[in-house]
């Protein structure tokens, strides 16, 4: 499955890219499984994504828990807890 992955804030800085297109194996079924899969891409990914409780996600622009399924997603964003306002 071809998906665009977006990173924001310190997740983006630590990984070193704002977005990347990946081809996911069918075995990657949830946001949490995606984070595991992405962590294996490089040391920078592994370091940025190491602490789950500091990560939040959105699938196709809607906030979801890390347990959410990703079937059919076109765009998945991974980022720290938000701090606007």
């Amino acid at each position, binding site marked *: 499955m071809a998906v665009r992955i*977006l990173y*924001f804030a310190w997740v983006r800085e630590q990984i070193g890219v704002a977005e990347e297109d990946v081809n996911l194996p069918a075995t990657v079924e949830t946001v949490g499984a995606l984070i595991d899969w992405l962590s294996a891409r490089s040391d920078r990914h592994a370091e940025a994504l190491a602490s789950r409780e500091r990560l939040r996600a959105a699938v196709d622009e809607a906030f979801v828990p890390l347990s959410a399924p990703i079937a059919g997603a076109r765009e998945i964003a991974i980022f*720290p*807890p*938000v*701090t*606007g*306002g």
Partner: protein
Amino acid sequence: MIRILVSDAPIDLGEEMRLAGDDGALATFTGTVRADDGVSELMLEHYPGATERALQALAEEATGRWSLSRATIVHRVGAMVPGDRIVFVAAGAAHRQAALDACAFLIDRLKTDAPFWKREQVGGQHRWVERRDSDDASAAKWQH
């Protein structure tokens, strides 16, 4: 009527107040950059598209819950300095209690529901602002 604006331009308070209208009661909140601990610059990052979508959903929820005549959310992004306005929210209604409650709801929930991230510049270093538990508590009190 709902007005959502995410922009790197300074927030024009006079213009926003004019657009926010006066339908009996108008409550507004304006947030500005603080110079805490020697912060010299604040960089606001956001998730284009998802941010506007989240703010629109929030404004719609407030409009339905308090029968607002108008709901406004304006958020600045990009580089700012202490004293600059970051955010302006306004709730217009027929009576004050609805306007005041809706305004508080909008700013409390904006802090937890919209994808913005603050990065502070202090001296030659920058640091990402951490989420505060008190923000989660303020947003949670509206869940009923």
